[in-house]
């Protein structure tokens, strides 16, 4: 097996953010912490006063918390799923991207999993889920699936991190004991490489079905009920597609932010963005196809209660949000990403942000209008989130950013050894692989 030795003295740019701390870091952290503290205060108030501090009511008993739960867990698919697919398909351009994708997953998954607890009327009884759980309930499917995904994606983030941790340990500038502990005795011997490569290969295969299962069962929370607008067979794949879609968008935002903050222009080149942008474009079209299928079948069937919800979304009170979603998720990305001239970094950033907004709106449009239109007539109510819900949303976003910033303070945000491996072996391997695709020429064929 061909091996290379990662070099801790190369790629200084990638180590610099870990070893040098500027005023900007402290400023960012303190702003984020302030936002999180405010959210914490608001949550404490909610625990004391009950859920009446939110905008939820009868019959709209789920609001921002569940919307954000679905949204955040959706983003988590960025991560590991994309990184695993890119690794599986041996896409050489993956190398500077995978780490960030995996970090998104681990952080956002933890934040997303917190949201159902924020939503509970009795958070003090959350242990009941373990003591008296009932696997018949889709909520328990979520608990099992999300915790499995969290375990698997954390392992999947950690394993490729080991050689990089060892590199930081060798540099010896910071917390040597921490990196010694975390590198698990990594010395880069051929046997160790063999073990690690095999483990990463297993994990990248394992993590794909788990990731798919996560968003499928989240969609089942809704699809398993009889409510109009929820009771749909395509919700599983529809949610998975939406999740990967929003995940890629979140990954782009993170990539662009770190690229400018850490001056990673040499590592995250335009070509990386353009390759991934094609995936975003494909997901946009796939998402539109699913949305079309979902709404057309509802409309054509014309079941009165289904129609009530559907018209409420596309032509009623939710119409502005619905069509904004369509513009954000379809028009903007398709226009900006399908033309080579517009597929620039600003163009990609704009379409990623609109996709994030659009996908968040999509979750909102799935959760709330169905509840605002129950099957039995209920005096019309409109859900308007309260300050508590908004501050907890911003708090969750800040927590996500903080998690990312802190991670980048301890570990390289671009996988150093994978980049170096690409430099050392990638070209050769790619040539070999391409050669293996090519038809054998007559002579060698005859010879064989």
């Amino acid at each position, binding site marked *: 097996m061909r091996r290379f030795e990662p070099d801790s003295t190369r790629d200084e740019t990638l180590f610099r953010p870990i070893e040098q701390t500027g005023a900007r870091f402290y400023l960012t952290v303190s702003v984020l912490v302030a936002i999180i503290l405010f959210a914490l205060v608001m949550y404490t108030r909610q625990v004391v*006063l*009950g*859920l*009446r501090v939110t905008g*939820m*009511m*009868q*019959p*709209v*008993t*789920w609001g921002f918390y569940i919307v954000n739960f679905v949204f955040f867990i959706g983003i988590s698919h960025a991560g590991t799923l994309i990184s695993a697919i890119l690794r599986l398909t041996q896409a050489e351009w993956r190398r500077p991207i995978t780490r960030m994708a995996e970090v998104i997953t681990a952080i956002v998954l933890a934040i997303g999993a917190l949201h*159902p607890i924020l*939503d*509970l*009327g*009795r*958070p003090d*009884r*959350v242990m*009941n*889920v373990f003591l*008296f*759980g*009932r696997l*018949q*309930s*889709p*909520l*328990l499917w979520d*608990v099992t699936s999300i915790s499995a995904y969290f375990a698997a994606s954390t392992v999947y983030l950690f394993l490729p991190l080991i050689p990089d941790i060892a590199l930081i340990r060798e540099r010896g500038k910071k917390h040597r004991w921490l990196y010694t502990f975390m590198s698990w005795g990594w010395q880069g011997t051929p046997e160790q490489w063999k073990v690690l490569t095999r483990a990463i290969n297993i994990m990248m295969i394992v993590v794909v079905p788990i990731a798919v299962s996560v968003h499928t069962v989240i969609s089942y*929370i809704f699809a*398993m*009920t*009889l*409510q109009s607008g929820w009771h749909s067979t395509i919700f599983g794949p529809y949610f998975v597609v939406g999740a990967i879609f929003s995940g890629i968008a979140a990954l782009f935002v993170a990539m662009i932010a770190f690229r400018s903050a850490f001056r990673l222009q040499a590592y995250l080149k335009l070509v990386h963005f353009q390759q991934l942008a094609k995936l975003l474009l494909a997901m946009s079209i796939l998402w539109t196809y699913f949305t079309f299928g979902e709404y057309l079948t509802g409309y054509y069937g014309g079941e009165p209660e289904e129609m009530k919800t559907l018209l409420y979304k596309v032509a009623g009170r939710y119409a502005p949000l619905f069509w904004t979603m369509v513009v954000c998720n379809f028009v903007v990305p398709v226009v900006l990403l399908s033309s080579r001239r517009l597929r620039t970094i600003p163009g990609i950033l704009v379409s990623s942000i609109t996709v994030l907004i659009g996908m968040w709106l999509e979750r909102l449009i799935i959760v709330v209008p169905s*509840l605002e239109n*129950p*099957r*039995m*007539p*209920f*005096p019309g*109510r409109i859900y308007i989130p309260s300050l508590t819900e908004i501050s907890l949303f911003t708090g969750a976003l800040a927590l996500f950013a903080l998690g990312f910033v802190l991670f980048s303070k301890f570990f390289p945000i671009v996988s150093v050894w994978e980049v170096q491996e690409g430099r050392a072996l990638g070209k050769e391997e790619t040539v070999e692989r391409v050669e293996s695709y090519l038809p054998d020429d007559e002579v060698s064929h005859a010879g064989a």
Partner: protein
Amino acid sequence: MARWGMVIDLDRCTGCGACVAACKVENNVQVVSPAEGERGRRMHWLRLLVEARGEYPHVEVRIAPNLCMMCENPPCTKVCPVHATYRGEDGLVGQIYPRCIGCRYCMAACPYSVKAFNWGSPEWPEALLSTLNPDVSMRPKGVVEKCTFCYHRLQLGREKARAEGRPLRESDYQPACVHSCPADAMTFGDLDDALSPAAQLSRSTRATRALEHLGTEPRVFYLEKRDAPL
């Protein structure tokens, strides 16, 4: 085991709201402030459903008491993550407040929108404290509650029958709403007992059940108005 059920005659119902009041008092259903009520936090185990059907000038107003349907195949119990709502031995759907974690999944799953959530702690004016029913608990904030068909009355009825050494009679057990209905629009009884008035009415050609097409098999029947347009 008796199959308790209710038949509500919409021809007799005047929409007076006696059942709503009786239910609130009987079951210590939280009274919220007017401001909270405006925000949609009113709590009812039984509410009057007012529905205008048809288009002007052919409008028909339909008023129907809406309460837990005690489905034979309840969508709410399936989704409960912690066994807090379940179908008991009498086939009545129970809600166990000390177990409920307040996720409100059952409320989202109930197609009849009959479950209520305690958005805040119950606050009882001093004057009302003495009117609380000691047989029914006061629910804390953060749990879901719903109509129980006045289950405590079934227990009291059973106890009475046992003390007198006789089987339970229908007259021993009537929910508060049925008891209070001045128009005699509500009939309660064992749907499996061919002789009981409730069972006979439930087999009437006028009998329908709400959202029957969902297959939830409600135990609450509505007798449609005789002059109701189809």
